[in-house]
């Protein structure tokens, strides 16, 4: 009974999160341009989407920036978290307080201040500055995800490994890293998500020729171009397929393990 209620609640929350996405998918098949009116079923926006080179470029930019930013900030964040964990408490606290500044700041301030920095340094705004700005706001989230895991680990195994002649690097990669893996993965996913979802910081830190999907959506004048709905629906379908594949694979693995 309790399990039933748990499940029901869980699915209701999921429905809440997915309701607007279902709406998006439905309206991507709307033949009318405006979301204010249902004009009948049509795939015209999908056809247009594939001929829209700026939208395709934006998709590629979004994915590359998100993946690169997530990978780089996960690496830097994890290493920093480990180093901070080994530092004195006072040093760590000071560093952490500064680390959290980007989290405390509104996006627009982070965005504008980074733009000021880049123009001050005479950087040309473009892909690199976009990437750097994304890495900047992702790192704190990685540190925040990884650091708590480090407090929870058992150091004796690590020390035993050192006693048995492992180098610190091996000991870290074989013992500590697997232990904190859930934290690293959640930091990575968080970075990926924040990067894909960001508009304000991206807007200020990119230049001519480099646009991500958010910028494209926000700069569309007549509200929203339905090609965006089509694009999102396709992305959504891709994510769902990926999840299904993961699911099938893990089922498969489980069965093999049982044998």
């Amino acid at each position: 009974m309790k399990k039933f209620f748990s499940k029901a609640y869980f699915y209701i929350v999921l429905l809440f999160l997915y309701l607007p996405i279902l709406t998006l998918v439905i309206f991507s098949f709307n033949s009318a341009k405006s979301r204010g009116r249902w004009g009948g079923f049509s795939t015209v926006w999908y056809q247009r989407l594939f001929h829209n080179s700026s939208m395709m470029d934006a998709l590629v930019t979004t994915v590359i920036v998100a993946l690169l930013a997530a990978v780089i900030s996960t690496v830097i964040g994890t290493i920093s978290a480990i180093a901070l964990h080994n530092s004195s408490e006072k040093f760590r606290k000071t560093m952490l307080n500064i680390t959290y500044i980007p989290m405390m700041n509104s996006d627009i301030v982070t965005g504008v201040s980074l733009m000021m920095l880049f123009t001050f340094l005479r950087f040309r705004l473009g892909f690199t500055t976009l990437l750097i700005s994304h890495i900047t706001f992702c790192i704190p989230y990685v540190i925040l995800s990884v650091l708590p895991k480090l407090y929870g680990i058992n150091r004796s195994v690590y020390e035993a490994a050192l006693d048995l002649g492992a180098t610190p690097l091996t000991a870290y990669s074989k013992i500590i890293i697997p232990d904190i893996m859930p934290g690293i993965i959640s930091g990575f996913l968080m970075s990926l998500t924040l990067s894909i979802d960001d508009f304000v910081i991206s807007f200020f830190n990119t230049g001519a020729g480099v646009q991500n999907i958010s910028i494209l959506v926000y700069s569309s004048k007549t509200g929203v171009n339905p090609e965006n709905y089509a694009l999102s629906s396709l992305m959504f379908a891709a994510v769902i397929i990926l999840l299904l594949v993961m699911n099938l694979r893990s089922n498969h693995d489980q069965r093999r393990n049982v044998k």
Partner: protein
Amino acid sequence: MKKLAILLSIVLVALSLSACGGNSDRITLNVYNWGEYIDESVLDDFEAKYPNIKINYETYADNETMYTKLKGGGSSYDVLIPSDYMIARLIDEDLLQKLNFDNIPNYSYIDDKYKGWSYDPENEYSVPYMWGTLGILYDKTKVSEKDFTWNTLFDPKYERSVLMKNDMRDTLGLTLKSLGYSMNSTSEKELKEAKEKLIAQKPNVAGRVNDEGMDKMIAGEAPMAVMYSGDAAYCISENPDLDFAIPSDGTNYFVDAMVIPKNAEHKEEAELFINFMCETETALKNALEIGYSTPHTGAYEELPEKTKKSFQYPDDAILESAEVYSYLKDKTDLYDKIWTDFIASI
């Protein structure tokens, strides 16, 4: 986990290759325009005609965001299409360069009515692209007003019925006009009066929107909205219950024109592009697609009679009484202050 890492790197490499796959000996022309303000096939036509130029087309949602981006430096655009008062500001701040009209022979197609405006009195910096007016889009089934004035928006009988614009110049301008002042007033007393009037209008306001107002009007969310003529034309095409009125107490009349910023990297190609945009066929395509009014004499001739008679091309009398926004220079701060005061009190 390792497999995931390998998969990830493959995806990354593949994507970066596809991103950098462009042909490097083509010149890239960066065009920065309002969103949904062009027939995009025109860009393909241009590239077909000039195969050595690749257009990188980007869009912005309003003059001010474009300005912020431009002012920040760090990126260079070759062609911009801002509105009149913004062009005056860009000229004033020395951000634009003079055009070489020898490269833009099609400039002769532009109606003289749209030349020599106060933002560019000597016609040195800009080539008009589109024009329009500010007015009231209304739902015929819900509003039966004989004579629309700006005061209609403030009439107590229209409780929760009006979508105002979340735009400083338009909102303050129309309120000043409703008080009988100039839309470009810089008198602190008049602006404060306008602010008070806007605060008192609160019960009438169903929302303060930007472009999302179009979808709301099409869906029948509100009986009235302040809107530009071109956007109104689009809304009416989607929902025939709607109609557009130009307030009889006078309105704003604007021109968006093509300019080249100082730091443009390909000035000649930019002029080539501007000239192409002024070809009759191109101008006609754009005018038909976006619903704003064309200053191009050749394209105007080709338009359907119905369009020529519609509010998109109002009588000269209306246009003569209409005001163009002027660049406020050092009074910009006063406007900003009044506007911040206003939105803080909502």
